[in-house]
């Protein structure tokens, strides 16, 4: 099997782990912002360190390698996908910081619009899947 398919498969696997962790982060921030049990926040942060964070790094590493290997860098669908991926990566950084603060200072308010953020993550993941599979505008 060629390198491109391997890179693509590992990229998708990392993305699944990342989106799962991002959603978990989001739910915990929403549910526990008022009165956060320290052990649960610690558990989510530990999961973030062990799985979601490394998965984010792998998503980017394998993604850039696959795009380079497949010669997709100038494709419009990839540019659109990159915008969504940068948004989700930034959201992860923001939420990771909020979790750290939550662990340190109990009673820190969560994001006001968190349910919509959860919806945004799902929408973002759906857009990414559609763009990556259909590759609009590209001759596959």
């Amino acid at each position, binding site marked *: 099997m060629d*390198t491109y398919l391997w*890179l693509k498969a590992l990229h998708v696997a990392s993305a699944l782990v990342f989106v799962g962790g991002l959603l978990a982060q989001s739910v915990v921030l929403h549910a526990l912002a008022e009165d956060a049990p*320290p052990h649960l926040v*610690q558990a989510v*942060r530990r999961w973030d360190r062990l799985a979601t964070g490394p998965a*984010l790094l792998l998503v*980017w*590493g394998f993604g*850039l*390698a*696959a*795009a*380079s*290997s497949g010669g997709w*860098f100038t494709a419009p669908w990839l540019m659109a996908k*990159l915008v969504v991926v*940068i948004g989700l*990566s*930034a959201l*992860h*950084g*923001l*939420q*990771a*910081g*909020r979790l*750290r*603060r939550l*662990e*340190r*200072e109990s009673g820190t308010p969560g994001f006001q619009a968190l349910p919509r953020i959860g919806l945004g993550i799902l929408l973002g993941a759906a857009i990414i899947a559609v763009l990556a599979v259909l590759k609009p505008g590209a001759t596959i």
Partner: protein
Amino acid sequence: MPVATPTPVTALGLILPVLIALMFIGVCSLVREPARRNFSAIFVAGAGAAYLSGGFGVLELVFCAAITVLAYRGLSDYRATGVAWLLHSGWDLAHDLYGNPIIPFVPDSSFGCFVCDPVIALWYLTGAPNVWGLLRKHHRSAPGRRREAGMSARRVPAEDLGQLARLRIASVVETGTLASLVLVAVPLKHLAGWDLGVRALGPLHGLAFVAFIWISLRTIAADPDRWPSKDAARLILLAFVPLGGLFNLRLLRRKAEALGATAG
């Protein structure tokens, strides 16, 4: 063996040199000071002589002499070692284009060094910190251990200082890759039709930019009281200016000093 010039850019050809650089940094971090600084200076001096029979005639001697001077300065200042590795990266590129690789029987060896050397250079330019020490510091400040040790859960200066140190490194890497891309690779593409630099540096800068934004947001969101909107905006906006990130280093040093004062 015929040598393809320039070396075709592949995913593996970009990832492998970066991994080698990270391994080099990991191993060098195990060496204690001042041996780490002295070894680094001697090593770059040796690397500077690798192309003595590289085909550029008297220029090879000039380059070797320049690296020797920088290596001597490197015995007392890591920045000189960093600059020497950046020059070496440029020399690697020249030899890749010329078709005379650093390891004669490995045709893409000079291209590999061209990608690997800037990563090493950035580590030296940030003072060659012990990466294992940084990781241990982060691990020691994990919440469970902190509580076990009866420390305050209110303030975590070690973790916050570690976060600022990572942000400093991310800032240097981001600004360095952007400057190389915009000031060197893009003009070479449009003026000389040479697009290898853009193809190699584009993805690397993309990764560095996202890492910087991610670490910035994580730092700001964890401690919004210490990050007024003005500072946060400055941190992010300067990332879009080539070499602008260097102006963030003083801000980050100030934040670290303020944090250290609070901890004390």
